[in-house]
Structures are given as structure tokens and as C-alpha cells.
């Protein structure tokens, strides 16, 4: 734990935490700038628009499927979530499509945030209750559940918040849990044989592409890849033990892994990729602000004061 670092400012020796419990708490709540929250919120809620239209379109298909084929998950039986009738599917679809863009610009962060979380959760129950459960949304669901707890956050705001810090830390933990526990699940369901079996061959034969079909002829490559996948998953928690300089490279490696997976077997893990941006200094990406600066320059107006304009000086 000694090397555990955070996004927070370094503390001075005088107020450095003394025991492990204090350190853990400090790590769990290490503050994050509100501008990062605003950026992540915009990204996550805009993603939902694409998600319901394209990525989880299969849920919308259920508007015509008789509910006799609906096999509720445990949570759908315990909690009073409605059966996915045509009406329920349409309410979720249009509700998410209309509310998400409003939440993306930061309106009513709590009210809209909770509403979207409930609608999206029901959308996911529809998506996953017909015989197949997808595993790429745990961290994204955690993100949607925690974003409303942060409250208001403005783009470009450098004020640091512990509320935001905690939410981001838990989202990050959920991202890494998805990897680490996936390795665990492989060993639980597949056993050690998973390493030298043909799971990847199955995946390629069923959903392969021109990028991956050639691998079928090279069994050693399949096996090496399988060992590589498990190693990567088991080692993923290392990201919590590296410093701010190295962390983006590891995140980059994670994204690269998903790019290769997508090219090979067209599984993208898109919602997980969105949740993973919580590891990055998102507040530095400000397309609208840059556009405004460019516009001002073109009109010959002076630079806007009190804005971080480091990379727009030219």
C-alpha cells in the first residue's frame, strides 16, 4: 500500500496519515476536480443516446416480443420492476433518449441523474432477461448510480471535491473488478483447462473477422493469447499502485486490448470503455471551449480571461 498514489495533491509530512485505515480513507476519498465530473457526465450521458439507438438495440426489439419469453433475473423478481411490455420498452427508450442529452449539459444533476439511472436499469433488465446476460456494463451502471450523488459540476471548474473523488474511485474499482473477477470466473467455470482449451477458437468461429480468422490455423497463438488474457486480467489492479505519469500508459494499454478484441471478435465492451475514462484527466478535453476560443480569435477579440488557455496560445 506504500506506493498507493492518488490524484490528490501530495500531502505534507505534517498531516500525512499515520495508519493504514487513514491512508485507505484518504485514497478512497482523494478529491477530483469538478471539471472532470462535468466532462465525464457529458460523455456518459451522451453515450446513452448511442447506446439505446445502436449498441443495445436488442432491448428495443423486445417491444414486439410477447412477455411469455421474458425470463426475469433475480433482481427483477425481488424488486417491483415492470414486465417489458411494448409500453414499458417505449417509455424507457424515449425517456432515455430525451433525458440523457439534458443531463449531458448538466441540468438538474440529481433529479435527471436518478431518473436516468432507473430508466437505464430497467432498460438493462429488458436487455438481459431473454436468455443472455452481457457483462460489459457493471462499471457503467455504477457510474450512473453514483454521478447523481456528486451534484452540480461545471466544465472547467478546478475546485476539488471529495464527493466526486469517492464516486470516481468506486467507478474505477468497478472497472478493474470487471477484469480481475473475469479471470476468477474463467478459472471457476472453465478451470485451468481454459488456458490451453479452445475458448478463443469458439469465439472466432462464431464471431470472427478477417482480422482474426487466420489465427484459427495457429493453435499456439490461440493458446498464447488465452494465457495473455488471464495474465492481463489478474494484473490489472496494478493501476492503483502506479503514479500519475505511468497511469495513462496502462489505461492506454487497456484500450488497446479492447481495440484488438473488437477487431478479432467484434466484442467492444463500449460501456466499460466509457467508465474507464474516469482514470484520465478528462477536464483537459474541452472541445466547446476550444471552438469558442478559435471563434474569438477569428473575430479578432481578445482571449477570454480566467480560462485555462495553455494549449491555445498560438
Amino acid at each position, binding site marked *: 500500500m506504500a506506493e498507493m498514489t492518488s490524484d490528490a495533491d501530495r500531502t505534507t509530512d505534517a498531516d500525512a496519515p499515520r495508519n493504514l485505515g487513514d491512508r485507505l480513507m484518504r485514497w478512497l476519498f482523494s478529491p477530483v476536480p469538478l471539471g472532470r465530473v462535468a466532462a465525464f457526465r457529458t460523455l456518459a450521458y451522451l453515450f446513452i443516446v448511442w447506446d439505446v439507438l445502436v449498441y443495445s438495440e436488442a432491448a428495443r426489439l423486445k417491444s414486439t416480443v410477447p412477455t411469455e419469453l421474458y425470463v426475469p433475473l433475480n433482481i427483477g423478481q425481488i424488486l417491483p420492476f415492470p414486465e417489458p411490455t411494448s409500453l414499458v420498452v417505449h417509455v424507457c427508450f424515449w425517456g432515455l433518449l430525451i433525458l440523457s442529452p439534458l443531463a449531458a449539459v448538466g441540468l438538474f444533476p440529481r433529479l435527471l441523474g436518478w431518473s436516468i439511472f432507473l430508466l437505464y436499469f430497467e432498460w438493462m433488465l429488458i436487455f438481459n432477461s*431473454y*436468455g*443472455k446476460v452481457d457483462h460489459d456494463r457493471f462499471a457503467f451502471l455504477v457510474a450512473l448510480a453514483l454521478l447523481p450523488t456528486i451534484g452540480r459540476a461545471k466544465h472547467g471548474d478546478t475546485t*476539488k471535491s471529495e464527493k466526486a473523488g469517492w464516486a470516481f474511485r468506486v467507478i474505477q474499482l468497478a472497472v478493474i473488478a470487471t477484469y480481475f473477477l473475469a479471470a476468477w470466473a474463467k478459472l471457476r467455470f472453465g478451470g485451468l483447462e*481454459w488456458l490451453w482449451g479452445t475458448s478463443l477458437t469458439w469465439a472466432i468461429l462464431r464471431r470472427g473477422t478477417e482480422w482474426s480468422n487466420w489465427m484459427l490455423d495457429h493453435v499456439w497463438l490461440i493458446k498464447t493469447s488465452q494465457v495473455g488474457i488471464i495474465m492481463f486480467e489478474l494484473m490489472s489492479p496494478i493501476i492503483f499502485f502506479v503514479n500519475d505519469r505511468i497511469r495513462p500508459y496502462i489505461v492506454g494499454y487497456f484500450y488497446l486490448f479492447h481495440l484488438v478484441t473488437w477487431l478479432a471478435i467484434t466484442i467492444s465492451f463500449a460501456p466499460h470503455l466509457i467508465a474507464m475514462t474516469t482514470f484520465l484527466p478528462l477536464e483537459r478535453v474541452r472541445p466547446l471551449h476550444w471552438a469558442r476560443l478559435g471563434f474569438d480569435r477569428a473575430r479578432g477579440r481578445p482571449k477570454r480571461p480566467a480560462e485555462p488557455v495553455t494549449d491555445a496560445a498560438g
Partner: protein
Amino acid sequence: MDVGTAGRRTRVVVTLLLAAAVFYGTLWGDDDDFPVGPFRMYSTSHELNEPVADTQMYAVNSAGEEFQFTESLSGLRRAELEGQLDKFDADPDRLAYLAESYHNRFPDRPQIDQIRIVIEWIELHNGRPTGNTSTEEVVSWQR
């Protein structure tokens, strides 16, 4: 900072509960425990000479035309079909709901009178596809 003692305590409890739930899911749970079920994507292992299954569905409409009954026509994804295969096998009349789904989606097209689910088995030898495949009809339904 902006989190008081009570807020801090609540957040720690939420963190621990979430962690407990997801560890429980991974250790003892199953897909039905969504969203905290085990992350078991492609987690089953297969032997090197075990054939690979690819499940497909075909339908015949009242005009006698046969076509592949894909996800966008039936409303059910391939993986969902596979997940419910036991149920269709036990009660082939459940396939009538898919004919109904098709009719709801395309009220102007001729109705579906027959549906069959087939598995295409792709043979492997030492982990490599041999090029041989065989098809097995697993369930069929007729109006």
C-alpha cells in the same frame, strides 16, 4: 472538504456492500444475479476436438418461402436463443411467440407458419477447424 462524517460513513458502507455483492456474485452467483453476477464472458473451456456450435433459426411463411429467421426479424439474438434453447426444446410451442413477434413487427408480411432451430456443428481437430460441418435440427414448430 465537502463530505461530512455521516456522508463519509454512508459512502464507506455503500462501497463495502457493493464489493461484498460483486464478490459474492463471482464466487457463488450466476448470470441471474445481474448486475453483480460473475463476469463469465467466454469463461467455459472447450476441448481441442470438441465441435463448435453455431445456432441458427429458419422460418417458413404462409407463401411457402423459407428464410433465415435473424435477430432483426424475430427480436431474439442468437445468444438469447441459445440461452432459452432448453425451454424451446421442452415446449416447442414457445416458438409461436416468435412468429407473433414477427407479425407484430411486420403486420403486412405473410405470417410465419413454421420455425425450426438448427445447430451447425463446426468440427475441430487439435483445435483447428477441419472444414467439416454438420447440421442438427433441435426444435421445430408448425402452426
